[in-house]
């Protein structure tokens, strides 16, 4: 049987249904956000764990031109290396009418029983028959073909062959086609031979137990073994153990979600403080009566804490299932983007505990101060009444000095300033909502600006990677002979590893050799300067290099072994933002060629076209690949800048859409908070409204007064948010940039967002004031003057 006290609490909550719903909703949004972040994070971690188990991620990957199969067994016996698998990976061009796209063809030694770099069966024949390929499942849709359809491939040799798409598989080790723009197909070694490429494996996947240093050491030993057998490793990739290639963007999203969750929770907490404080004020007489009939201070405080607890419980009931659903949808969507299978849904107890803590403990904590105040009200104060307190301090100043402003305006200002604690909390909630709202939109603006700047990185329109190094001059001459091409540069691409001061070896980085100061390549620098002619052995490293070589900066000297040759000392002159994924080092072409012992050879050809629209670039790319193939050059891939820009925009677009959803949610929560607080203000002024009407105020006059208060509060909150959002936007942009791109974004403050927030806040203030004001005005003057 519920006690009278319980029924009092229930009665109070039901007496102000809209306010109860507002408060519960505000908390619910915050708890949902917390649950969604925590739940999504937990689910994503399990997804990654499952994927790791599914895909058997390699500890290190070594690429070389050709690895004799006999060496693979020897690699397995290298100390520290637990296992190794070899495969051949060939870059082909998928011919699609006049267009062509990159398709990476992977020839697996076997489809079942791979120990490293596992693939999982999808649909169709397993393994595929000779002459057929299985498309990676994220590529299948992009191919636009049914199972059984045929694709035409141009191999590096220039040969064109038709392959049947026999089904699909899932390879968690490769990025999804949606995010990378690259198609993946899997064939047997026999099929690849039939297509005209009978070469040996060119990729070694290693499993090295231990940490990253152990993996680097193992990889170093393997590359030494290969070198002793005349095989030069062109690239060595040693990821962070257990790290997933998409971990950084996922972490960026988690960071943004966490910011959202904290902001929403805080706004909800501010609202609880204000609501419970208002309740205590409204019920001061009741508190006095309860104490007169035996309620102790503790019992009084418990009543109001219980009220806050019920707000929290209501929020939790709503938020827990909503958060679980949102987490699942988010992980499901994200997993699809990054080509993972989402783990089975579950609600970890720690996530539930976090939501319970956020939904229950925070409102209780918020209600503590007002409940304490309630417990301390004496019966005499409560029943005799201290009298309505008049305005003090700044409120008096305003009242006296507002000069010729209408009485209504002066009244509105003094009313607002009369309750400083509530005003502070309301303004804080609005400012918080506004700050994060504008900061989120600023992150969006910064991402777009960074994208635009990244476009300037590529001064070229078509980027062609050759299957091996060719004489630079021959490449450039052939390219310049293709219609539509205005400039062409052939760049060397070498592999180099760093010998660290402690003697350990880093992974092998790609070193790009372009003419110093080339207009076709302009890395966006975060520190230092660009390469200049005459610099000699100088390099610029991108931010991904700093992942494994932290602390490097302009002025530092590093020892690099280029192309497996003796290490020489180079000077770091600049740090560049990551534009191309993965660690890249930039050096002058002739200096690099000398260091590599491969003068005048290049493996990459970049071309500027006469016209720069997407179609012109694509036509030029097709013509170039045809022309180069006819001239006997083996092409691995060919990409237009337009396509890369589109890909970047799509990838950024996911985060940007996400940011916009966040902004909307914040606006919603901020609006709920503002509505709740303004409605309290109006409710407390019911008696005053009655008095105004008793002395002749029309409905319009009262509405104007109430709206003026709401607008003042909204404007004040906006004014506080404006400078804060400038700082918060930069901090958030930097954090997202570092996570997403390895370097801060180029900051762009969203003035439009700031103005939009102002308009939104003012509009919400009007609505939030008018609705309760109209309700108060419907009471008769007699009723209102008897209102207590």
């Amino acid at each position, binding site marked *: 049987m519920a006690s*009278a006290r319980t029924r*009092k609490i229930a009665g109070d909550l039901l007496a102000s249904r809209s306010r109860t719903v507002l408060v519960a909703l505000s908390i619910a949004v915050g708890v949902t956000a917390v649950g969604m972040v925590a739940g999504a994070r937990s689910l994503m971690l399990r997804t990654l764990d499952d994927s790791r188990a599914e895909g058997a991620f390699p500890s290190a990957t070594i690429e070389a031109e050709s690895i004799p199969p006999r060496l693979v067994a020897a690699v397995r016996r290298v100390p520290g290396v637990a296992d190794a698998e070899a495969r051949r990976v060939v870059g082909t061009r998928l011919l699609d009418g006049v267009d062509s796209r990159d398709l990476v063809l992977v020839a697996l030694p076997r489809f079942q029983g791979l120990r490293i770099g596992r693939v999982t069966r999808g649909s169709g024949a397993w393994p595929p028959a000779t002459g057929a390929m299985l498309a990676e499942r994220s590529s299948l849709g992009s191919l636009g073909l049914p199972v059984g359809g045929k694709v035409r491939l141009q191999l590096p040799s220039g040969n064109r062959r038709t392959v049947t798409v026999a089904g699909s598989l899932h390879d968690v080790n490769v990025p999804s086609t949606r995010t990378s723009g690259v198609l993946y197909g899997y064939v047997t070694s026999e099929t690849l031979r039939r297509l005209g490429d009978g070469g040996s494996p060119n990729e070694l996947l290693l499993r090295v137990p231990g940490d990253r240093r152990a993996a680097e050491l193992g990889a170093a030993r393997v590359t030494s073994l290969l070198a002793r057998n005349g095989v030069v490793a062109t690239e060595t990739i040693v990821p962070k153990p257990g790290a997933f290639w998409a971990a950084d963007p996922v972490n960026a999203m988690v960071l943004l979600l966490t910011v959202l969750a904290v902001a929403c929770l805080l706004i909800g907490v501010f609202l609880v403080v204000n609501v419970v404080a208002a309740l205590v004020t409204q019920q001061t007489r009741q508190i006095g009566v309860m104490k007169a*009939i035996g309620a102790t201070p503790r019992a009084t405080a418990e009543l109001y804490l219980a009220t806050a607890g019920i707000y929290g419980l209501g929020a939790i009931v709503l938020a827990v299932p909503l958060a679980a659903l949102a987490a699942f949808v988010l992980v499901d969507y994200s997993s699809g983007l990054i080509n993972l299978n989402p783990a089975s849904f579950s609600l970890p107890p720690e996530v539930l505990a976090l939501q319970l803590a956020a939904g229950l403990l925070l409102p209780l904590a918020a209600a503590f101060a007002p409940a304490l105040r309630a417990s301390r009200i004496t019966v005499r104060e409560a029943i005799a009444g201290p009298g309505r307190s008049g305005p003090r301090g700044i409120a008096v100043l305003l009242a006296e000095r507002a000069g010729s402003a209408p009485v209504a305006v002066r009244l509105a200002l003094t009313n607002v300033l009369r309750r400083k604690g509530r005003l502070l909390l309301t303004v804080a909630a609005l400012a918080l909502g506004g700050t994060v709202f504008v900061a989120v939109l600023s992150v969006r603006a910064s991402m777009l600006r960074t994208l635009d700047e990244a476009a300037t990185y590529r001064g070229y329109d078509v980027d062609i990677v050759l299957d091996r190094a060719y004489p630079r001059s021959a490449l450039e001459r052939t390219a310049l002979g293709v219609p539509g091409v205005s400039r062409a540069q052939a760049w060397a691409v070498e592999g180099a590893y760093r010998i660290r001061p402690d003697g350990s070896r880093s992974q092998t980085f790609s070193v790009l050799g372009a003419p110093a100061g080339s207009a076709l390549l302009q890395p966006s620098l975060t520190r230092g300067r660009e390469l200049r002619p005459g610099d000699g052995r100088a390099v610029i490293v991108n931010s991904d290099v700093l992942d494994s070589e932290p602390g490097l900066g302009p002025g530092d000297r590093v020892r690099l072994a280029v192309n497996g040759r003796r290490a020489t000392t180079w000077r770091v002159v600049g740090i560049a933002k990551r534009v191309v994924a993965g660690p890249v080092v930039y050096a002058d072409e002739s200096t690099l060629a000398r260091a590599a012992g491969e003068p005048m050879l290049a493996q990459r050809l970049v071309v500027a076209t006469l016209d720069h629209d997407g179609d012109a670039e694509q036509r030029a790319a097709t013509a170039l690949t045809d022309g180069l193939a006819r001239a006997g050059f083996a092409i691995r891939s060919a990409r237009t800048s337009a396509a890369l820009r589109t890909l970047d925009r799509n990838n950024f677009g996911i985060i940007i859409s996400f940011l916009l959803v966040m902004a909307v949610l914040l606006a919603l929560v901020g609006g709920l908070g503002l509505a709740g607080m303004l409605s309290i203000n109006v409710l407390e002024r019911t008696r005053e409204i009655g008095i105004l009407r008793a002395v002749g105020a029309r409905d319009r006059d009262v509405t104007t007064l109430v709206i003026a208060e709401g607008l003042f509060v909204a404007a004040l909150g906006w004014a506080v948010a404006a400078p804060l959002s400038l700082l918060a936007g930069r901090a958030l942009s930097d954090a997202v940039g570092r996570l997403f791109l390895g370097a801060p974004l180029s900051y762009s403050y969203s003035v439009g967002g700031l103005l939009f927030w102002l308009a939104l806040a003012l509009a919400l203030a009007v609505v939030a004031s008018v609705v309760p004001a109209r309700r108060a005005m419907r009471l008769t003057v007699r009723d209102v003057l008897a209102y207590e």
Partner: protein
Amino acid sequence: MDERPLIRLQDVVKRYETPAGSLTALRRFSLDVGRGEFVAVIGKSGSGKSTLVNMITGIDRPSDGGIWVDGTPVHELSEGATAQWRGRTVGVVFQFFQLLPSISLLDNVVLPMEFCRLWTPRERRERALDLLDRVGLAGKAKKLPAAVSGGEQQRVAIARALANDPPLLVGDEPTGNLDSANAASVIELFEQLVADDKTILIVTHDNDLAARATRTVVVADGVVVNEYVRRALSKLDLDQLGLAVAHLRCETYPPGSVIIRKGDPAVDFYIITGGTVEILLQHPDGAEVVVNRLGSGEYFGEIALMRGGTRRNTVRASADGPVEVMALDRETFDRLVRESEPARRELSRVAEARLEA
């Protein structure tokens, strides 16, 4: 039966600090209320009667002096202890009913029992229903306060005050917000409670209510007006009584001492508050004869003040014991006589009767 007073106030002083300075609401206030009494406290606004009630209920604390209710030193209790003590010992009835608006009439009556953790939940409800039945509102137990009339709400408030079966009921203007019919029913209820051995102390402006009390305490200017003074100046209204009290001086005379002498100028008016005085008449042979004896609640010295001239008789304290009088200066006496027609008539009548005698 316990002969100790249920309420004892001893030299209670209450001062308030206000922006305008220190305000003394009660000045060395002393009062005893016996068990089973029905006491009406009257006085003009600002006289200190609400402060008196707040002292007794523990709502406020004295600046000086002590308050005991049912043996408990209320002035020494902490805030929390006071709440619990009050819940069990004092049933408070307010002028504006002060029922909690969001719970039913029944729950309003149950609430004090819950706060004081008395009886089981089932017993509380049964008891509350009984109390509501006693005040004639059992049929409306589930209704909210806003659904019943003011008079009904006040009856529920009385039921709530009785919830924990306290020995004392205190009301501050309990009929102040009721029409005459409802006020009458509330007064009747109080009388029934007194018959049931409850002690009731009511602050009131309601003359009907005051008339039904077994005892009336008049508060004026922060003090209890001495009962004998009140009796002697019964024709003065509260304002005039307050003026008189503000100017009264307490004087004590040893047995046999002369208070006023024949032929002296008339300076003061005297009210006897303790002991007996003898009115002396001088015989032609010079002997003094006692022509009258006056006791507590009676007055003397009015004849010369009203008719002019010097004292016509000597008045002395009897040999039985000391005499305590409250003396009022001439100026104040003249003013009161001038302003109060009933008082002037009464004084004239008594003076006339004494002269004829």
